[in-house]
């Protein structure tokens, strides 16, 4: 008689594959990746069906945002932690990658210094600061992509969750965190290039960043990262831990009384999410060609939350839809109606919230969703 949890006997990471929505998601994602690849490679430039390198990179950037949105949805949708500072993890991952790319430039910088990045020569630094060491090695940098945001999330989360900071209080201190980091990274003394950030990258893993093939490769890598990120998140959500998360979200105290260490659950999910955000940031940097402190800006983090809400909270794929849609809309609107696009975007936000309570995903959901979940979680904020 009890049928709803049929695949709970599989290992947690495999469970998503039994699920229609994940199959569909992965199908569409890989289909799209393949299609773009084929259209890009098979048709010559100028052909009507050709997908230009410009579009490929653009799509790659959207996918990075989508992964970031998934990470935010994991903590917000399922754990009830409205993080207004996920941009910080994204940016840290980005900086880790940026530092690697910077070191890769070697003596091809404008000053031709074999060790120091241009901005250091320029500001008269004599030697490489200690935290820049090791970033010339790809493996080290890639570990830092996970470690830097993960560690920050671990320390920050450990403090906050241990003290049982919840609701808006948590949201605001995540915001304070990213704000503080933004100001810190703006400082030239910090050694991260100040406001100008890190730019002028040449190549990654030996591949020329300007070549179309590298761009395509990065795009595909991002797609795969998104798929993996999605499956990991979905796996967590479908596991018992996912249900415990929802329990924490809706009745944190009650969850403790049945024996779960809420702060550890929160910490675990938060750190996973931060690392995903870091990966997203790391993939983002080579594709847009710059990382600067504005990624730490609190408004950017709020915007990410807006993507998730727009797509539909607590669905994961909704986050992806939201991120893709908003950013696509931005690209289009800033091009075709440069003076009025904010009206369109702002209007979109307002209309979707008012007309589609569950976001765009709500439109797609045939099955009746847990209606009070958002509400119940929402109340924490006001309480």
């Amino acid at each position: 008689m009890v049928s709803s949890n049929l695949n709970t006997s599989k290992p947690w990471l495999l469970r998503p594959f039994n699920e229609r929505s994940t199959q569909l998601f992965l199908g569409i994602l890989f289909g799209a990746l393949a299609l773009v690849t084929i259209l890009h490679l098979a048709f010559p430039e100028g052909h009507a069906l050709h997908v230009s390198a410009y579009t490929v990179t653009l799509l790659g950037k959207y996918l990075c945002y989508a992964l970031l949105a998934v990470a935010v949805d994991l903590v917000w949708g399922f754990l009830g932690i409205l993080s207004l500072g996920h941009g910080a993890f994204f940016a840290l991952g980005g900086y880790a990658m940026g530092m690697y790319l910077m070191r890769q430039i070697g003596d091809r910088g404008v000053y031709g210094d074999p060790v120091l990045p241009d901005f250091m020569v320029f500001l008269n630094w004599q030697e490489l600061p200690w935290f820049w060491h090791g970033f010339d090695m790809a493996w080290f940098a890639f570990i830092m992509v996970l470690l830097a945001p993960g560690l920050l999330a671990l320390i920050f989360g450990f403090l906050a969750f241990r003290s049982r900071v919840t609701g808006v209080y948590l949201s605001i201190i995540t915001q304070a965190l990213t704000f503080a980091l933004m100001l810190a990274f703006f400082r030239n003394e910090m050694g991260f290039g100040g406001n100008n950030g890190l730019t002028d990258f040449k190549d990654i893993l030996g591949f020329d960043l300007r070549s179309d093939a590298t761009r395509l490769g990065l795009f595909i890598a991002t797609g795969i990262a998104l798929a993996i990120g999605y499956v990991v998140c979905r796996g967590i959500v479908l596991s018992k831990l996912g249900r415990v998360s929802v329990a924490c979200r809706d009745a944190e105290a009650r969850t403790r009384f049945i024996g779960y260490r809420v702060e550890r659950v929160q910490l675990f999910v938060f750190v996973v999410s931060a690392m995903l955000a870091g990966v997203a940031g790391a993939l983002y940097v080579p594709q847009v060609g710059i990382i600067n402190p504005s990624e730490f800006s609190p408004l950017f983090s709020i915007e990410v939350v807006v993507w998730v809400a727009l797509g539909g909270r607590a669905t994961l794929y909704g986050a992806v839809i939201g991120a893709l849609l908003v950013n696509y809309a931005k690209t289009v609107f800033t091009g075709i109606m440069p003076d009025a696009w904010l009206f369109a975007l702002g209007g979109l936000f307002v209309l979707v919230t008012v007309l589609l309570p569950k976001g765009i995903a709500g439109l797609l959901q045939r099955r009746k969703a847990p209606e009070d979940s958002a509400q119940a979680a929402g109340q924490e904020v006001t309480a």
Partner: protein
Amino acid sequence: MSILRLLTGLLLLLSLSLPAGVYAQSSDSEASALLQALADSSYAQKQQVISDIVSSGDERARTWLEAYADGKLAQTKDTGAFVFVLSNRGRDWTVADALSGDTIGEMSRRNIDRIRINNALRKELEGMLSVIDLTVDDADTRLAAARALKGEVDAALAERIGTLLDTEADDDVHDALTEALAIYQVAQGEVAAVAVLSGSLNPQARVALNNAAQSDNPELAAAAAKALESIQTKLKINSAAETLYFGLSLGSVLVLAAIGLAITFGVMGVINMAHGELIMLGAYTTWGMQQLFPGQPGLALILSIPAGFLVAALAGIAIERTVIQHLKGRPLETLLATFGVSLILQQLVRTVISPLNRSVVTPEWMSGSLMINEALSLTLNRLYVIGFALVVFAGLMLIMRKTRLGLEVRAVTQNRAMARSMGIKATRVDILTFGLGSGVAGLAGVALSQITNVGPNLGQSYIIDSFMVVVFGGVGNLWGTLVAGLSLGTINQILEPWAGAVLAKIVVLVFIILFIQKRPRGLFPQKGRAAEG
């Protein structure tokens, strides 16, 4: 200095020997020639021309020089006539004849050649005017003039001050003159004068003493060092007071910006991302009022208080009716919708008004500072803002505590369905409260227009701080907002001198993060079973 000395001598001579009315009016052609000389000469020569003008004895000389100092004296290109520029905005300027004083009317600005002046000359002119001011009847003017003389005294002037001191009736002016004289005397190496400067907070006095302390005369050096010591302690106290004032004033800006949010967010639970834009509307209202009442910035500012409240309140109500009321029970979604609203409002201002900042004039009575002593003066605009913040806070407190609205809004937010079952008109309460919170944001905008830019980005720069303050104080607690705002402001200002502005801000943020660990529900938490869940 030399030219000043010359002028001082000249002017003293003039002002003493020739009572007003004895000035002759030179012929217009002579006058024109003088002014022509002023226009044609190089900066170096202009000083000489100025003294020529003064010594011409023309009764219009002072008007010319004042106009010149203000950059209003000009020559027309076509006729070469000298004019005063009365209004210099836009492409056509209003001018008056400099010789007769009659208004001529508008004239293309390209036909007007202003007679050039630079800072150095302006300073000379000011010095001259202040020497003249020493003998006017109004004590305040004399005091200002006397103060301005500190550090500017030379031998001729010192002598003059000596005689003036005998007749000076006003104590403050007398003291100021004595000090001005003493500064000169210390510089001349007179040990006796050091005593006068002991305890003086005037920076020029300090410079003089510092120099004296380095002097070869051991007696002078010792006396000066001792005097400096007494000054140092006084200065410390004053600078502490100053820091506190800076802190409170920054804090009251934070409080003003946040207090409306303390209602809409803290009490109603709406995450109002458009709060900053409501502040912006208040600021723009002030600008608008000043456009409506040109030339009366003070009146416009005062009228802006109700107007700013009204405009922002109406905008708030419009937001509530069109958007927020549909989001009942979904507080997080209000973030999304109001974020959209804020984008729209910003762009609306950019398109309808302008993407550029607007200039809001500070009325006379709000500019400058209130001098407590020579080391401590409180800037007036900020003083008003502190007062305004406290008044707004008190008013809000009254409304929330003493009227039914306060009770009803809390009932509605805590349990909407039940409140309605108790006969509370929830919709009305929503409108009134949101209107109130928004209106207060508008008031904040009116105040901020006196401190910072009025532009489309105004709101964004305050939204984050506002949320921080409300949360730091404890959501739903107005006192919390007040204390949080003032304390964060003060902490920031205490840190700033030694950490620098950027680090101070970072430290404050880290402090907030750590503080919340200690008190997970802010400074004034909601206590009790219900709050703990």
